């Protein structure tokens, strides 16, 4: 399901901690899907303390350079959360 980049990110980090239920096929609740750029920013906002090799951007600059507008789900306009660099 996952391509290279997000392969090591656990499902529960972005969705709710209900992996056990998902694996058993049991649905106990609606899966939490947060489409806001704030979720992506947890990891990908540029910070001095982050390892330089880790993909990170200054969000406003990145959105502007791509010709977009900073709306809540702006990241998902270009990136597939499960395959972000396709």
């Amino acid at each position: 399901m996952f391509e290279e980049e997000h392969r090591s990110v656990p499902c529960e980090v972005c969705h709710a901690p209900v992996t056990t239920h998902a694996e058993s096929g049991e649905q106990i609740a609606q899966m939490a899907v947060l489409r806001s750029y704030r979720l992506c920013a947890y990891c990908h906002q540029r910070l001095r303390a982050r390892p330089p090799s880790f993909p990170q951007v200054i969000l406003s600059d990145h959105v502007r350079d791509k010709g977009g507008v900073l709306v809540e789900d702006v990241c998902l306009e270009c990136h597939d959360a499960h395959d972000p660099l396709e």
Partner: protein
Amino acid sequence: MPTTPLSDPTLRHDPTDVDRPTTRREFVSATARTVGAGVAILIIGDRPLAADQDGGPVIDYDPTKHHYHYVIDVRKCIGCGACVRACAKENNVPPDYFRTWIERYEISRTGGIHVDSPNGGMDGFEPRVSGEDVTKAFFLPKLCCHCTNTPCVQLCPVGASYRTPEGVVLVDEERCIGCSYCVQGCPYGSRFIHPETHTASKCTLCYHRITRGMQPACIEACPVGARMFGDTQKVGDMVAELIATENVRVLQPELLTEPNCFYLGLTGEAR
């Protein structure tokens, strides 16, 4: 590793219990069952730990057959806070208290050090504006080091704080009187007094998970593999190999607490 009565989990409030508190009747019957299972294991022989049990009773777990270690790779941590959020959810950690947290260090060219930990890193970090020329910066995740030579166990006046045979430092909430000697005594700041139970609380290495073959919540949550968990008594364990071969360090080694939490990529500024 010798066990004293104080470190024998079967003589204490069952730390693998997910639901708390238990009544004395439940405690006694749970203890009897645990001892009975222990006797059964001695008779039948040691069997491998059931992998990935999803809740339910602990089966086939022998505390003396494990020794846990934790490694954090500071060079990989991106300060996303997923570990802090996962721990808080898994262990019902109250707001403004932390069983694990992340500190951000920013060091300027002139040697000035700035450390911050906004809400423990739970909400991630925002860029910090500073006038200094910051030349070095990193994130430092912290948690209870589960020391071999624990100050907290020594300090506890009622013996509520104890070390299990596999090296996990736990608090027996039924014995704890909330005096907070241990909170003051821990050099790593890993303990706090729970605002509702008024007992000492801290990272338990997700004891309720590791005794069921799972990993601690923070380990599972880390998206970059900065946190690693291992069992040095397991043959071929990668973390044990890493500790034995790589340049691992501990926090404040001069205090001789002998932490079981090791760091890769730790710099001289880290405390």
